[in-house]
Structures are given as C-alpha cells and as structure tokens.
C-alpha cells in the first residue's frame, strides 16, 4: 500500500504542479480564456493513472487536465495547447477545454453532460471491434442531472456496453450545491441503468484506484456499465477569476483539511517515509513543470494565416 501511495503522491504532485503552471498562464495573460483547475481533486486523476490502456477511451470535461495526464497524454504538448501555442496538442485551435489526443482516444468537451454520449460511442466501437477495451466518461456532480447522462447510461445498460462513468462529486456546480438540486445520489441511480454503482473517497487515491479498476475490469469482462462516484472538494473558484462569493470564508478555509496531497504525505510519514524524500517528489514535479513551461513559452503563437484551416477537408465554399 505504501509503495502505491508513494507513486500516487508523485502523480498528485505532478497534477498540482501542472495546474499551478496553468495559473501562471492566466496571471500572465498567456491563457486568455476560462481555466478550470482540479486543485484539491488530484487524488482522482492519480487513482485513474495506470489503470487504462492506450486503446481504452477517456472522454473528459471542462476540468480535464488530471484525466488527460492519467491517460498518458504527453504533458508538454498539452501545456502548450492550454498556453495557446502553435506546438500545442491541437495547434492552439482547441485550448484548455478542447483537448484531443487521437492515438490515446482521449478527448474533452466544454459542454456539461456531453462527455457521456461520446464515451458511449467509443464503448460501442469496442463491441463492434470485438475488443476488450473500455470507455470512460467523466462527469461532475452537476453533469449527472443532464439528459445526456440518462440517455447514455440507459443505452449502456440495455446493450451491456463497456462504459465506466466516473462522477467527480465536489458537490458544486459552479455555485449550486448539487445535493440540493439532486433527488438522489449518482450511485443510487445505478440500478435505474442496470449498472454497477460504487462511491469512494475521492481524496484517497488508493481507494479511487481500487474502485476505478474494479469498474474497468467489470466492463472489460463484459459486465456492462458502472458508475464510480468519487467525493472530493474544489479548492478554488469554478474558474480562475470566479470571485467564489457563494461560499463563506470559513467554508473555504476548511477545505485544506481535505487536501489529498497533505493527506498522502501524512500517511506516508506515519508509515516511515522521510520529509526529505517526499519533498524531493514535490521538487521533481515542480522541476518538470518549470522545464515544460520554459519549452512552451519558447514556442510561437499559431500563425493567424491558418485560422480558417481545418474546418472541413472539402472547402465549404463560403465567402471570406
């Protein structure tokens, strides 16, 4: 367990460092649109990391960096995309909410609830392929009240498709407390879809990994869909710039008690790890990101002459 947690801590630190690098980009104006970070929610990405194969699909949301890293999307092109560079994963056309890594079947969308239909399509493709790959669709607790959630899970259940729905439950959809506007929990909805349901402490990467792996294995074995709900806490505003006035100062202060990184540190120290050893992990993550940031910042902005490329292969023939 301690070895596993050690590795999870390294992953969480890498995710946090990544998010913090993005914060720099917002402050500097290099990222000029919305940015949503997973700070405080790193244990989920860490628990997912390593469970999926390249030929498994993962479809994520507006809060997607941790999932991308968990799927093995290369860090530098990803950071470059978020920093709006020509060397970005998508050449700077997509940006933070629209990451596409074709080879790893990773994609995202900025529309809440829109991830699951896409993941469902991947799951169906896997059945058509006769492969044992699986598809994972991520949603927040807000996304579970969208029609797309229902339609996708019903289809997955009816056709017993290899779909894992990972619900990141930070109990907030921007300012709306999801439990106040939800008639039931996500896991309690699993029977409505003949799905497996499991709730897990999303600040515990070991628990997340176990639950996520069980769901993936279940899907791989032909058992059909699962809902894995990981409870967690959103440390920052919904997006950078969100004044977050809908939470009290006390409420926000209390969040640090749920820091998955601090938690893992505590456990590892109690288990015999040294401060220095763990600090070294943090340094390694920060160094990787510093180097990545330098590389990204050296890259050019996309050439405006190409702004009209890539709409379709065949020109649509409209006037310019």
């Amino acid at each position, binding site marked *: 367990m301690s070895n596993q947690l050690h590795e999870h801590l390294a992953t969480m630190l890498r995710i946090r460092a990544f998010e913090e690098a993005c914060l720099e980009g917002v402050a500097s104006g290099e990222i000029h649109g919305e940015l949503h970070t997973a700070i405080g929610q790193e244990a989920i990405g860490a628990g997912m990391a390593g469970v999926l194969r390249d030929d498994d699909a993962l479809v994520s949301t507006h809060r997607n960096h941790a999932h991308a890293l968990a799927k093995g999307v290369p860090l530098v092109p990803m950071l470059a995309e978020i920093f709006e560079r020509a060397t*970005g994963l998508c*050449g700077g056309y997509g940006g933070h909410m629209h990451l596409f890594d074709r080879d790893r079947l990773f994609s995202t969308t900025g529309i809440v609830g829109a991830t699951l239909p896409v993941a*469902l399509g991947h799951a169906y493709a*896997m059945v058509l392929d006769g492969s044992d790959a699986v598809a994972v669709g991520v949603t927040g607790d807000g996304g579970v009240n969208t*029609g797309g959630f229902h339609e996708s899970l019903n289809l997955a259940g009816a056709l017993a498709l290899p779909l894992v729905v990972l619900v990141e439950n930070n109990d907030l959809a921007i300012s709306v407390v999801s439990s106040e506007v939800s008639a039931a929990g996500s896991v309690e909805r699993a029977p409505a879809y003949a799905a497996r349901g499991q709730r897990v402490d999303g600040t515990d990467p070991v628990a997340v990994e176990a639950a996520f792996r069980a769901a993936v294995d279940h899907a791989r074995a032909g058992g059909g869909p699962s809902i894995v709900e990981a409870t967690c806490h959103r440390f920052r505003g919904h997006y950078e710039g969100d004044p977050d006035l809908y939470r009290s100062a006390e409420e926000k202060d209390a969040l640090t008690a749920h820091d998955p990184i601090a938690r893992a540190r505590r456990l590892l120290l109690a288990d015999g790890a040294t401060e220095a050893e763990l600090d070294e992990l943090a340094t390694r993550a920060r160094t990787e990101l510093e180097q990545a940031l330098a590389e990204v910042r050296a890259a050019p902005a996309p050439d405006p002459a190409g702004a009209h490329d890539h709409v379709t292969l065949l020109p649509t023939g409209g006037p310019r």
Partner: protein
Amino acid sequence: MTTSAPTRNLNVSSYIAEAIRLEMEADDAIVVLGEDVGRQGGVFGSTRGLQKRFGDRRVLDTPISEMAFTGMGVGLAMSGYRPMIEIMFVDFIGVCLEQVYNAIAKNRYMSGGNVAMPVVIKTAGGCIGSAAQHSQCLWGTFAHLPGMHVVAPSSPYDAKGLMAAALQSDDPVVYIEHKALLLSKSADFAHGAEVPKERYTVPIGEAATVRDGGDVTIATLSANVRDALRAAEELSTEGIDVEVIDLRSVVPLDTATVAASVARTRRLLVVDEDYLSFGLSGELITRVLETLGPSGIEVVRRLGVADVPIPAARSLEEAVVPGATAIAEAVRAMAS
C-alpha cells in the same frame, strides 16, 4: 420532361437504402444508428433491408435518446468508424443539436485537424401535412453553423448519388431527404428518374441546371425543384422561358452556377421550403449580388415559408408553403 418510363420504378427511399447498402458493402466502417432503422427499415423505408443484410450491431435500433446516439457518432468516428445517424424528422434536432454543432461540426477544427468526423446525419424534412412540429426543412439552421456540409436531393438519381457521396465524405454531412419525395416513385419525376443499380456519387457542392431558359433564373432545391419544373412548363406556354437550377447542396453553395445563369437572365427567384428569413434565400441573393454587383441584376425575388410555423389545416398549409402556383405567379410578376 422524361418521356420514356424509367427502367426501375421504385420509391426514392429504396434508392437511398440501396446507396447505403452499397457503401456498407464497400466499407466495413459504416454503421447505422437510429430509431426504427433496423427491424422496420426506417419509418419511410430508406434503411429497409439493411439490418437483415448487416446485422443488428451495424444497424442499431436505438431507444428515443437522440442526444446519446448522436453523441455516439462522435465517439464512433474517433474510434475509426463512419457512423450514419438517423434523426427521424429534422424537427427533432432540437433535442440533440448540441452534439451536432458543438462536436461533430467542430472537432476537426478544435483538434487542429487531428480528428476527423466522417459522420452522416440523415434526416427527413418537408411538408406532408403534419403541422408545425413535423414539417420543417431547417437546412438554413445547419448551414449557419460551420463545419458541416448540407445536402437536400430533389430526384431519385441525386438521392442515391448524394447519399453515397455523404457516406464517402470525410467531413460531416447533413443529408435532408424530403418526406414527400421519399414516398414518390421514379416515374413521378421529370428529372433524374433513371437510377443505375451500381455505385456512383453525385458531388457535394455542385448545383445542376435541370432546365435551361433565358428569361428568369429559379434557384431552388429538394421538393420545390419539381414545383419549379411544373411552373416552368406552364410558363413556357405563356412565352416565359425559365431556367431551373437545383442547388442540391446548401453547404457548399454553388454560387457560381447560379451567378452564371443570372448573368444571362438578370432575374433571380429563389424558392425555398425552409423558413424565409435568415436562411438560404438571403444568403444566395447576397452571394449573387457579391459576385455580379448590383449592376449585374435587374430583379430578385424569393419565396419561402414566410416566418410562420407550418399550420395543420390543408387550407392554411397551402397558403404558407410555396408550390407551383405561387412560383408561376412570382415569375410572371418578375418577367413583366
């Protein structure tokens, strides 16, 4: 007018099913998803026989979950398939437009060209008496949103050829069949009635001049082509010589063919069964104006559903949907 009877005299829907069958035989990546596309072969018959031929996985009968199965098209495409998604009536697009315009139409662009979206959205439009929620055309709605081709065939030949082209396209194509045409047979058509049994394509983005004439240019598409040809026949007996252009594609819009015709006739009538405003007619007139300049045009007119929902009663419906009589009247007013 075709005078000889066509070799085959099937429903247009059968030719569409034939096109899909031939493409599916040629390309294993094509899968068909939608309500009633399998066991029933489509409520209008345009997927008839496909499930028997290709099995119930490649031709999937879905629940009434348009958002889910339209989104499945996105995932399937990213997994290397070439999905055809049937939205039974185009009127239902409001439950799933999200996946169409924010994903299918944009993923290629948002991915910087890394991800292709070879998805066909097949759907039925047009009036056959079913009132405001089952009679719309809406090609103007799709055309306004970038990233998709939009086609609407008018004849048996084009119905098959454009479906084949749509399925072969690496870009998303919205294929809008007209309910009244689906249920018509080859022999009912004065143009494009002869349909080869083999594979062929009609190129997306090319209009066809289906009748030559020197006095007035009518640009139209889908079922209105039939009406325009009827009107033209009538007008020819009055000495008015009408050119009828079948646009066939809304996106890409073949402005060049229309402009070349108007350069001769100097009179353009656009006939559009879709809503009149903020749609095809304004776009086409503007592009022709941009191409020829104001001095190149003498008269422009347009006929469409004048920004009113389609009413139920036949008497009301006939008053809002453009047909041969209204077309002939409009041309007379322009020619005088």
